[in-house]
């Protein structure tokens, strides 16, 4: 299967080229955030504060890693179920977020926002946390340290294996793949 290498920050030209079902290897900085961090983002925006990082052209990874063993930069770091972030994602997309990494289906509202603002949703293989940790070169907590595995981290990744689930044109790998193999 053909594999495309891409990097962050995600450029508009690259986003337009990405096709549903395609495997990509992602390099650059990405940010981890789960439910609790997203909730804090919303509270911060409501109170007129600044987010821990600028969303423009960035990628968020829905992930709460296991503790880093001695000598390792991170523990197992597979994706968590993305739908729990559906309520918050459209707001971040409207602020310039271009990519999300997780597992599982997104709501129609998120898909609409992705299409409107030209963003993509990538799937990392759920339960491949050991393999995914191999693409993490360094990790640094940048906000909400007290939240443990829910803290926001900046990860430097190299060749992180992902699949395009939703491209910017409204295509969805879950619908398309399932109907193709349904017997």
């Amino acid at each position: 299967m053909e594999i495309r290498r891409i990097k962050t920050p995600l450029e508009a030209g690259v986003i337009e080229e990405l096709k549903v079902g395609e495997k990509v290897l992602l390099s650059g900085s990405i940010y981890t955030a789960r439910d609790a961090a997203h909730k804090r983002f919303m509270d911060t925006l409501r109170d007129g504060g600044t987010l821990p990082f600028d969303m423009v052209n960035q990628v968020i990874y829905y992930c709460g890693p296991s503790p880093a063993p001695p000598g390792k930069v991170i523990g197992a770091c597979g994706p968590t179920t993305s739908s729990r972030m559906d309520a918050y994602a459209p707001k971040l997309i409207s602020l310039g977020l271009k990519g999300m990494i997780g597992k599982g289906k997104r709501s129609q509202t998120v898909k609409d926002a992705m299409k409107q603002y030209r963003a993509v949703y990538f799937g990392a293989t759920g339960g491949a946390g050991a393999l995914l940790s191999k693409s993490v070169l360094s990790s640094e907590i940048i906000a909400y340290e007290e939240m443990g595995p829910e803290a926001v981290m900046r990860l430097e990744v190299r060749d992180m294996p992902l699949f395009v689930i939703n491209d910017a044109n409204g295509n969805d790998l879950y619908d398309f793949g399932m109907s193709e193999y349904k017997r």
Partner: protein
Amino acid sequence: MREVHVDRIMGALEELFVDANYNLSQNVLDILEGSIEKEESPVGKEVIRELIRNANVARDEHIPICQDTGLAVTFIEVGQDVHIVGGSLSDAVDEGVRRGYEKGYLRKSACHPFSRKNTGDNTPAILHAKIVPGDKVKITVLPKGGGSENYGEVRMLVPSQGKEGMKAFVLEMVTKGGPNPCPPIIVGVGIGGNLETSALLSKEALMEPLGKRNPDQALAALEVELLDAINKSGIGPQGYGGTVTALDVHVKMMPCHIASLPVAVNIQCHAHRIKEMII
């Protein structure tokens, strides 16, 4: 009476939870290998290859297979000729879990149901103890992730819904889960008993080795039929579409009340971490 000290049980628990979270069993690896051939989708095949690579990295580089290292599900069969000495069995189990999750760098996922405050050490364990004949203690651990556990359910069917109703329920649960329980999944079905025994049977069904059929011919046929139907759903590895949605289905059944038909479905992900030890 054979005496078994609680410290041995504690030590076994500590070791088993770490072992389970780092070393995928050969049985699961073999089944994953075999499923590459059965998968028709190129994306699906690539996902399964990633899972095998993942298991190898976990073992060789000592990184947990998955970051969700589960609630500490523990089954203990205590021989009736065993006398457990030195303290409380359940305290020993919790202490073993506490140590294993701390020393093994495993994620602690147990929390208060409403405040969501983490208990901090992954206790209490989900302990099921049973008295059996003999003078041995058999311990089986099954650290179980939330993503797959969330798609299980117990349903009290109307007896007239029968076998067809049961099959429809199983397929409904698999479809509802879709990509979320990390397919390829393993499905445990518990039929009969009452509300809680059907649930327990469904969990015990998950503990059967993959590829092994029920000794009861009729149930063996049912397992094959269900597996086939699930794999026709099109969900496929990670839900990206494909012909391997489940690696296996196990069914356990027992008599129930004349007025009831309890059925429980318990879903397990491909990260099927299970280890046992006999003391």
